[in-house]
């Protein structure tokens, strides 16, 4: 905060050393991305040459072309968008309502239910994958969008984060509105929600990242290649008939780049969002 307001400082020796160190570490962090990009621009035969070399000798878009022509990558991309957008919208609505309900309203059995939600923080598809699958199977939702989306829509963590946030809003605002005769729902939608925009953005961003990148649950619940999301399709279908590395790297970049591009543009909000959702667990 304070650094932004200050005028630029001169290059001191310690700043030069730190910047050089930062550059070296960043290069190490980015090298795998560069390796993926260069591999995707080689031909399949050049990609597997021993010993490896960084830059392609023959720059070619072959792998990218093949990716779009032969695979179902466009299907996967659309599925990923559909699933992540649905999950994010439902989570935002449902957890904002529930967070407010727990923070501000009274109803019978509230504290017991809150305890249950806290217990829900410890449950994930990784822990309860098999019984979750048989439940979804019984509902007839295996290999459907519903089956992929709905089980991702009950995140106790997000309810907890918004609950903590709503508790911090001063009650007086709402009380004044009640006295003026506004209904509970109107107060929620016109006063509370606009006040909580930063927290909602944090929850939304975090949910979108988690859902876009989710592998385990879509992997369990889909067998039909047409219904797979990007991470799942790339990991299962593209890995199954003898890996073609150039294509695999191109597919991986296509799955990863949208979020990275979004990050470059919305960096401040995303950083605040991740820090906020993480720090709420404190």
């Amino acid at each position, binding site marked *: 905060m304070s650094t932004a307001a200050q005028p630029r400082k001169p290059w001191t020796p310690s700043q030069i050393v730190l910047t050089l160190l930062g550059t070296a570490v960043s290069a190490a962090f980015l090298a795998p991305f560069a390796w993926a990009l260069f591999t995707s621009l080689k031909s399949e035969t050049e990609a597997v040459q021993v010993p490896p070399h960084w830059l392609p000798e023959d720059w070619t878009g072959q792998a990218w072309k093949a990716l779009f022509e032969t695979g179902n990558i466009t299907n996967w991309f659309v599925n990923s968008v559909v699933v992540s957008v649905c999950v994010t919208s439902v989570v935002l609505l449902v957890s904002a309502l*529930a967070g407010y309900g*727990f923070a501000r309203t009274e109803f019978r059995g509230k504290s017991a239910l809150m305890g249950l939600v806290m217990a829900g923080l410890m449950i994930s598809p990784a822990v309860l*994958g098999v019984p979750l699958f048989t439940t979804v199977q019984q509902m007839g939702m295996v290999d459907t969008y519903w089956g992929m989306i709905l089980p991702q829509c009950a995140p106790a963590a997000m309810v907890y984060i918004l609950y903590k946030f709503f508790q911090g809003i001063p009650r007086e605002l709402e009380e004044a509105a009640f006295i003026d005769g506004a209904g509970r729902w109107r107060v929620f939608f016109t006063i509370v929600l606009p006040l909580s925009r930063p927290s909602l953005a944090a929850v939304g961003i975090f949910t979108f990242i988690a859902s876009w990148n989710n592998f385990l649950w879509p992997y369990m619940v889909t067998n039909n290649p047409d219904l797979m999301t990007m991470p799942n399709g790339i990991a299962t279908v593209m890995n199954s008939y003898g890996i073609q590395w150039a294509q695999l790297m191109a597919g991986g970049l296509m799955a990863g780049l949208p979020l990275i591009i979004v990050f470059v543009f919305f960096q401040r909000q995303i950083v605040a969002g991740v820090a906020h959702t993480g720090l709420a667990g404190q």
Partner: protein
Amino acid sequence: MTTSAQTVIAPVRAGTAADSVTARRKQGFQHGGWFVAPFLVLFALFVIWPLLRGVWLSFTDANISGDSASFVGLDNYREALQDPLVWDTLGHSAYFTLLVVPCITVLAFLLAMLAHHIERGKWLWRLCFFAPFLLPSTVAANLWQWLFNPGTGMINYVFGIETPWLTDKSYAMLAVVICTLWWTVGFSFLLYLAALQGIPGHLYEAAKLDGANAWHRMVHITLPMLRNITGLVIALQILASLQVFDQAVVMMDFLPGPEGSTRTFVQYTLEEGFTSYRVGYASAISVIFFVIIAAVALARMWLLRNREESAR
């Protein structure tokens, strides 16, 4: 503010008006059940019900089709305690956790200190260290599988070594750990960075006036101020690392790795459920796993409460 003013003024106007105002104010917060209802429906269907169902299935010999399950009592649990694969895979997940948690905590702290203290281009450092976290786990895993690949991989080439990363049981889990560090350190890095930015600058200025050097300032101001966030990072990492699955299976082509050395506990439960179709047994070991995860989470809550009490 408004409330106190209202209550003071109200009696002057009329007693009944004051009553109705308080009533209305209170009524706004009554009967909130409808707010939580949509979440509770989803939560009950996809969290609580599977948990109860898992507990029930763990006492049966259910298979994947769900029919003809009969009650077998504690047989599944008895078998689990004697199943060497339960202990092996639990050990692999614990080994992974033991390697990842300290490394990620230290690395995230160092990266955050670096990004915090370089005065120029903060957004660029943040982007570089955080970008890997934005990749799907499977993409990160494929990328590192490719980097570790014998012969064609860059790691061995760059460092001039011939380590059989993915095919030797003493290196396989290490390869998964390295991939995980690169992929997930960005998240903890951001938490540390946010915490560093939250330390009030006057603490450092005061210390400087007292003649404290950079090292003293770090040991006596930065580290103590970061205690809470370190606890959080460690707790989140332990819980996430125990549940490792994605990177390990993808890097090993959905196999258990050399001599089964990267088969994690989650992977074992899924194999039992979906490959061996033993849903009852898979549920039993999932319940055991849930108890372990819950114990870790409760231990953290207990530690936090103890610390709060001793701080008082």
